[in-house]
Structure formats: C-alpha cells, structure tokens
C-alpha cells in the first residue's frame, strides 16, 4: 500500500534537487563539504515512509540528481534507493527515539550514505575526496548540516505522504497512529 501523494511529491522533490544544483553545489562549507539536501531528504523520507515507499522515493530523488550529474546515469538512484530502504527497514531501532537522538543518528546516516556514494562513484572512475586527515572535518561538516536539516526534511516529507508508516522487526509494514 503506497501512501505517496505523487502530485505533490514530484514537484517538491524536483524543487529540492534544483535548489541543490543551483545553490548548494556552488557554495561549500569551509571549502570542504557541501550540504547535500537530497540525501538529507531521503533520511527524512525514511523516517516517515514504509520501506517500499522509501525505496520508490529514494529512487526518484536519485534519478532526479542523476539528470544533473555526469557520472553513470542511475548511480545516485541506486544508492539513494538502497539507503532509503535500509533506513526505513531499520528505523524501529534507528530513528524512533527523541529529537536529539534522531538528529545524531540522522547525521550518522547521512555520513554513511555519503561514504556509500563515494565508494560507488569510485568504482565507476569518479574521484571522491582523498581519504586524508581533512576528510574527518568534511564528515563532521556533512554530519552537522544533516543534523540541523533533517527535522525540516521530515516535516517536508509529511506534505506528500498520507500516512506515517513503520516496519516491525520481522519486516512487516504498518501504519502508525
């Protein structure tokens, strides 16, 4: 059962990706890291959506990102789809506690998603930042931006999801509330 309101979801996700492409890709934090709204939004989606919807929306976000990048077309779609699905399945343990815990774990999730993206990109000959000491600062900046923005992202997600879904430990999805 899908709770996605596609008429709202598509323009909102497109707008987020365009803001990323037009603004955030050109302004880096301390010259090292950039705020990655699509990944943060995917974490927000995973916090509210069931695993199937999260996978669908993660795929859509990634596909939109792929249109504006020139790596292998489908790379971001596959990574964000997998990240969204994994977080949605694991959210009973990861994303259900209080707001602060939610921020911290979202930051960790975004950092891990970024590393997965870098690794996948490296397989295709792209060049992620070198793994030097400065990469710790990069990760820190990415994590802080994610922690700060994941709550607005979750609220935004609520505008195009009809119901809040969750997944139990056996993998069964259910509507919350």
């Amino acid at each position, binding site marked *: *059962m899908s709770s996605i309101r596609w008429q709202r979801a598509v323009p909102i996700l*497109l707008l987020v990706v*365009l*803001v990323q*492409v*037009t*603004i955030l*890709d*050109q*302004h*880096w934090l*301390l*010259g090292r890291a*950039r705020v*990655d709204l699509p990944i943060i939004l995917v974490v927000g989606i995973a916090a509210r959506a*069931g*695993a*199937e919807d999260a*996978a*669908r929306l993660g*795929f859509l976000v*990634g596909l939109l990102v*792929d*249109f*504006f*990048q*020139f*790596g*292998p*077309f*489908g*790379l971001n*779609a*596959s990574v964000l*789809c*997998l990240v969204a*699905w994994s977080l949605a399945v694991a959210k009973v343990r990861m994303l259900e506690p209080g707001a602060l815990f939610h921020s911290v774990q979202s930051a960790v999730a975004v950092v891990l998603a*970024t590393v997965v*993206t*870098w690794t996948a*990109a*490296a397989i*295709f*000959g*792209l*060049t*992620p*930042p*070198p793994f030097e000491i400065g990469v710790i600062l990069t990760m820190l900046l990415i994590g802080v931006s994610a922690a700060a923005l994941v709550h607005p992202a979750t609220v935004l997600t609520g505008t195009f999801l009809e119901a809040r879904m*969750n*997944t139990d430990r056996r*993998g*069964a*999805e*259910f*509507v*919350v509330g």
Partner: protein
Amino acid sequence: MASPIVPSRRILYLLLATAVVLMTVDSRGAGPIGAARGAVFAVTSPLRSVIGWAFSPIGATWNGAVHFDDVETENADLRARVAELEGELADIPDDVEELAQLKTALGIEDAERMTTVVAAVVEDRNTSVERIVEIDRGSADGVQQDMAVVTGQGLVGYVVEVLSDNRSVVRLITDGRASVGVTVRRTGGQGIASGIGSFQPLDLDLAIDSRGEVRAGDIFQTVGVDTSRYPGGIPVGRLIVDADTGKTALTPLADLDRLVFVSVILDVETTP
C-alpha cells in the same frame, strides 16, 4: 493502533535492477539518456534561473564572508604581477618584430591555426564526486562532444556533453576520467597526465626513457597525436616532484579554481 501490511522486497530489487539497466545503457554511450538529460536541463532552465536569482543575495553574502581573505591575498598577488608584467611589456614590440623577421628569413609559418569560440562559464558545480562546468555555447555555435577547451593560460578540459543550442558541459583535466598525453619541449620527454580529482594536481606517468631528463618547473604541453581529442602544443601544467618519493605531478597552468571565460577549440588547421 497499527494495521498490518504484507511487506515486499520486490520493489527494491526492481528499482535496483532498473538502475543497473540505466547505468549499462549510459555506459554504452546510447543517445536516449543524453537526450533526456538535455531535455531536463532545457525544461528546468527557467526555474533554475529563478532560483539562482532569488538566492543570489545570500550567495553573494556567503562568498563575501567565506572568500574575503582569499580575495585580498589574490589582489595583492595580482598587483605585484601587474607591476612585473608592465616591465616585461615594454620589451614585447621589439621581440615580436624580431620573431617576425626571423620567421620570414627562415621561411617558417605557424604550424597550427585554431578556430575557437569564447564561452562564459554559467555554472561551476561541485558534487561530492565530480565537478561540473557548464558553458553558454552549444550546438548552434558548432560545439561538439570531445572538443578541447582552453584558456589563455592552458588546457582546461574537453566538452563531455552538448546539452542544447547554447549549453554544453566541460569535463576538467583534473577529473578522474580525464587523461592527456603530454610532452616537455625542452627534452622531448613524454608521459601521460591523469586527473585524480578536483583541486588536485595531475598525476604524471612519465615514459621510462624520459624520467631522468625532466626537472621540477618544466612546462608540459599536449602531444597532439591523431587519436587525441587535444591538439598539440597546448600548455597543460608545470612539473612538481615529490622530494621524498620522487613521484611526479603537474600543476595545471589554467586557473581551474575560478573559471570565468574559456575557449572551445572548434577546428585546427594544420599547414604543411
């Protein structure tokens, strides 16, 4: 209360399989994805312009705050450089005249004449894994895929995709998927310079018989063999040598950090 719904991983597998198919189609250089990408760029162009305009005051403030020190340092460097060049400028007319006289005396013509089109950089984006430079020239200006892109200082990269009549995307020589055959005029030594990432020097793999001949500071230029997308003689980078490991690299001569205008080489006319 909660109402149970039967879970399924089929959708995940289906979506991942779709992504793999898309990557396969894209890696074969098939047209539909390039065309779709161009269409999405064209359709969203007005909206991107509006978003860019709306956020430009914030962007300007951000750049002012973040890059202020850099700009001050750069200004000081530029003033010093202007003073130095003004001194050299005085000698140029004599040098040019002398060169022309020598060429006439020896019957030498310029080996290559390049037809270029100047393009403005309209977007310079850094994703987490690649840098994307978009220019305001496209198919209407004769720009085609794989054409070399330069500045007055040296090689910038090549056109990786022509998006529309007036938009193309440039892949920089620092990109991990870019490499170029290079030679140093002083010794004739050759090698291959490969990108290893934005804001990094180019990795230089010298031919075995060239390794002892080069020294730090040598300027390397494109070799320009027939199979290369780059014409010969374009300056690429200055050699740096790691004192400990002996590893060689090239610092790009073109200022790739702040590209404003570039030239696309449309055609190279070689005189016999």
